[in-house]
């Protein structure tokens, strides 16, 4: 559930950046770093779509997995936990790559992007812990 809440926060962060990218927000609120340098760089687009829009898709997918996972009929589904680990794991790799670009290629940091990277990292850590917990529970009960 922590993952779900983080994903929902992520939805708003990525929506904000996506709206900026599509020109609906005049300038980014950026107390630390150079958000516009990062978000107007050529790295801010991935396969023709703003990176923020991909992030929005990622957060919505993670939130959907969590919401499905808390329904009673899927309460003991290990596959959903595994899917969440895989999704957030991919998110960590992607965010890691973006952070590398910010630090070493673009030479500018965007506080919103860093916020998103931290959210993804925590989501991944929690999803791994939850997945292991599910496995322990199963072993305890003796079923596979």
């Amino acid at each position, binding site marked *: 559930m922590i993952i779900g809440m983080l994903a929902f926060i992520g939805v708003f962060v990525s929506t904000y950046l996506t709206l900026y990218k599509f020109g609906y927000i005049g300038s980014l609120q950026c107390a630390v770093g150079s958000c516009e340098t990062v978000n*107007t760089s050529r790295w801010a687009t991935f396969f023709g779509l703003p990176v923020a829009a991909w992030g929005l898709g990622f957060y919505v997918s993670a939130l959907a997995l969590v919401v499905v996972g808390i329904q009673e009929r899927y309460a003991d589904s290990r596959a959903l936990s595994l899917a969440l680990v895989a999704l957030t794991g991919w998110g960590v790799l992607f965010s890691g790559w973006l952070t590398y670009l910010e630090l070493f290629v673009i030479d500018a940091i965007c506080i919103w992007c860093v916020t998103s990277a931290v959210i993804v990292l925590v989501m991944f850590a929690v999803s791994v812990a939850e997945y292991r917990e599910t496995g322990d529970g199963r072993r305890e009960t003796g079923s596979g």
Partner: protein
Amino acid sequence: MAKDRVEAGRGRRADVVKKSKSKSNTPFYVALAVIAVVGIGALAYFASRPKNVAKTVDPAAVVAGEPQGYLLGKPDAPVQVIEFADFECPACGQFATLAEPDIRKRLIEPGTISYRFYDYPLAMHKNTWQASNAAACADEQGKFWEMHDQLFNQQDRWNGQATSRPKSRFQEYAQAIGLDVDKWEACYDAQKYQPRIKANEQMAIKRGASQTPTFVIGNQMVGGAISFDRFKALVDSALVLAKSAPPAPNTSADTAKSTAVPAKGPGGQ
């Protein structure tokens, strides 16, 4: 015995899981609702702030006026050509810098064609509305085509990937082409010609332009950064048709409405 214990344990585990899940869902949904309220509030606040630094346009909010193309050449030339283009689109830039100089020299100046440019700003290009705005304000001082050339020649300096504040670049171009910069700036800031740009965009959609640039040459519609040779071939076939058909209705020099093209292209309405 051992099996009974396992079964009992399994049952207990399932109960615990089910109870804990159903019990704890409500706080989760409440937390989501709180995040939603805060998030939507924050987004609404950011979106409503004055956009004085990077002037952006909400294309959806603009009410369309009358479409108006920008004319080059004699309005009563035998072949009427329309271009639907986006100032920020790389293919339009490629066409404007590679093929268009020849077109002007060999087809427009001798009076073979009349050429009208209509804005077709695409949503994916962040600065294109501002560019159309800059060009329309240059038109107010009779220098649309000079601004058009500056915008396309230096597209990579002001496009959405280069900057989120293109106005200062446009201002340089306004100065370079000899506009009254204060007057131009007042027009630019007022976004006076947004209804016209919107109307031009709607006309492009209505005519079935599916890409930028799209050209209507006589009764042919063609898309993409075509070469001069291809362009000339289409003009030649339109010329043949024009000679065998009654003269096209004359169009006003200052406003080229959607009815200005004598025959509709295959993708047209």
